[in-house]
């Protein structure tokens, strides 16, 4: 068993953390959040220079060949700075489809530019009224000469407002909820028949609603096997869950650090509020929750290469359920221990709360994954 980081991993983490400490203080972040896109292109370029965007791609394709552990380290550092940039959408989600589902030609065309920070991707999957089941897709893909026609409507497409290419999921055959019959395509955002409208999210980010009106997609933009794309979609969603788990650990760590600082400096009744034992216990419970979350984030990264699909599915559901609940708990405690200031837009703790709620909501919340896990037999087999 090996929980230690390699020298290389430590270096990457250290340099990313240095960059964020220098360039991503909370006041800078506020300024980024106020721009129309809600994040900073300049920071994005700095990520590219550092190799953060190239990290998970194969070296022969212009990447750095990083593993799930490196992705975890990056996600955690980004979470701890409440980073707004479209890393999850572009590198983990879009990049995941490129790595696991794109042809060599398509990868060669996109990966180097993505790594250089020149191309943004987004995952156009969720639909109005759909459950978090990844097969709950109504949007259709119709075969025609040399390609496909897409029709449907996607919503809550993270950073879909700025993406250059969208990974669109659609149904070739079958009914919503069926795993058979799904397909995925890489669609340029400028494709004719594609319209998008910017949405705001409750954690201060941007997303888009995307309408596909008979959008033509050439065969060379197909990701995975048309009709058989479910395992691909599920795999990428699982990688996103693992990344979100690590990001959540980062966000919780920040919320906790701010809380501990506050307990030491805020004085009421003539002494630091940290001297009240009930608050010490609450802060300790937060620490316990974060350590549980950290363990699950590590387990998520390790489980991604579990070959048994059912086993992997159970593991990632367990992770997401714990992360969602502990994230909410840490948010509640951080705000409660701060009193009024914890609820304000001007202070980071409230943004930690908003992000932790968003992380819970993405790709199935705690209730969804607990139900799936329970219905799939749980983690421990009956005696």
């Amino acid at each position, binding site marked *: 068993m090996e929980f230690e980081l390699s020298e290389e991993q430590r270096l990457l983490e250290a340099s990313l953390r240095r960059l964020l400490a220098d360039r991503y203080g909370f006041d800078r972040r506020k300024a980024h959040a106020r721009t129309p896109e809600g994040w900073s292109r300049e920071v994005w370029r700095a990520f590219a220079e550092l190799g953060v965007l190239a990290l998970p791609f194969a070296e022969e394709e212009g990447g750095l060949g990083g593993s799930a552990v490196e992705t975890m380290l990056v996600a955690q550092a980004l979470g701890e700075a409440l980073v707004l940039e479209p890393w999850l959408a572009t590198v983990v989600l879009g990049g995941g489809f490129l790595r696991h589902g794109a042809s060599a030609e398509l990868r060669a065309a996109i990966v180097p530019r993505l790594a250089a920070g020149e191309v943004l991707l987004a995952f156009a999957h*969720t639909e*109005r*009224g*759909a*459950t*978090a*089941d990844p097969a709950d897709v109504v949007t259709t893909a119709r075969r025609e000469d040399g390609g496909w026609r897409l029709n449907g409507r996607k*919503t*809550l497409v993270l950073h879909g407002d700025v993406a250059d290419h969208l990974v669109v999921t659609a149904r070739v055959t079958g009914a919503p909820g069926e795993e058979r019959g799904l397909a995925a395509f890489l669609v340029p955002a400028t494709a004719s028949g594609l319209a998008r*409208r910017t*949405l*705001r*999210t*409750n*954690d201060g980010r941007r*997303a888009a*609603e995307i309408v596909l009106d008979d959008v033509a997609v050439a065969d060379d933009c197909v990701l995975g096997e048309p009709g058989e794309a479910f395992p691909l979609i599920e795999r990428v969603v699982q990688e996103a869950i693992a990344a979100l788990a690590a990001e959540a650990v980062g966000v919780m760590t920040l919320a906790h650090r701010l809380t501990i600082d506050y307990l030491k400096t805020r*004085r*009421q*009744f*003539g002494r630091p509020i940290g001297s*009240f034992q*009930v*608050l010490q216990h609450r802060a300790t419970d937060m620490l316990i929750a974060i350590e549980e979350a950290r363990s699950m984030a590590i387990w998520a990264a390790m489980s991604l290469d579990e070959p048994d699909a059912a086993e992997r599915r159970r593991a990632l559901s367990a992770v997401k359920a714990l992360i969602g609940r502990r994230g*909410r708990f840490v948010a*509640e405690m951080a*705000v*409660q221990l701060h*009193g*009024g200031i*914890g*609820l*304000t*837009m*001007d202070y980071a703790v*409230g*943004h930690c*709360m*908003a992000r932790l*709620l*968003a992380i*819970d*909501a*993405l*790709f*199935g*919340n*705690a*209730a*969804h994954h*607990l*139900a*799936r896990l*329970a*219905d799939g037999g749980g983690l421990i087999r009956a005696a």
Partner: protein
Amino acid sequence: MDLRLSEEERRFREEVCAFIDAALDPATRARMESGRLPTKEQWVAWHRTLAARGWSVPDWPKEAGGPGWDPVRRYLFREALQAAPAPQPQQFGTQMVGPVLIAFGTEAQKRRFLPRIVTLEDWWCQGFSEPEAGSDLASLRTTARLEGEHWIVTGQKTWTTLAHWADWMFALVRTDPSAAKPQEGIGFLLIDMRSPGITVRPILTIDGEHEVNEVFLDEVRVPAENMVGDPRRGWDCAKFLLSHERAGQARVGIAKERIRRLKRIAAETRSPRGRLIDDPSFRDRLAAIEVEVKALEITCLRVVAAEATRAGDRAPDPASSLLKIRGSEILQAIATLTLEAAGEGALAAPEAEPDRPSNEVPSVPDWAAMSAPLWMNWRKFSIYGGTNEIQRNIMAKAFLGL
């Protein structure tokens, strides 16, 4: 012991509900249902509708312009409003400064201010908390020094709810910095918000709302006649005010209204197990909350009944801490269940307000888009008016002798 309503009380409740149903503007109701604060116009209009019926100051005795209801009727009235859902009569006037004036004010103060509270001619805000004086309210620093016929007030208040809508503020100010104990030497002062030297600055909360403010006071001149009671004994007014309203702290009517609404929503929402309302785990959790609401309601009725038999005695009751703790925790649990019901929809920020429709069909139903902002906003229930930690401290001291 009989906690059931009498025939008369039931008829009273029906009368109130029928009135609300007929008189409440649908746009106001829609906005309340969505979980948003009413607009100032909606709130004023509704308050005045109640005033015209004689019901805008339900807690006041007849002599002061109230309906003179007993505690049971006051409770039923409040719950009926919460169930509609309709705005409460504006609370800073009717439940806070009004009762203080009735108990501690001069005849002139009563004549001047009370009628304008009844009709919401004056919007009041509460200037207690300061940056360095939250839970430890008695450490407040805003000073008032007497110069001839005026108090000169300087300092800063914060978290002042709806100060940007307010005509008047009742504030705690330090009149005697040399007093032996921090609670002594504090006055309860009525300040015209249009006075020179007052600056109101918004504080945005994380749900994007503007509900609270900072209020800066720079050498503000306040006529001496605006001091309520002894200028060194304002703490008595504050204590009276903070524990005045007992059963209302529990917000049982809001909890019931939110649960009714959540059930309707769950019947229209899909989950991996079919309709959400049919999902056994959701049903169990909802039922558990309903049980807790019932326990709180009966506890409330016990407090109300005890109050009714102790007419006239208005001493603070530590039971209000119990009601506030459970009331806040239950509402927060309902917010969590609603958030979970919203699923990925909880990610979307609300696009249009229900009483101000837009042309776009929102990508996510409003209730789902509101679930996260409300969840965040409702954390305030365990913070304001004395945090739940402070409430537990009060109970430990009052009930346990610890």
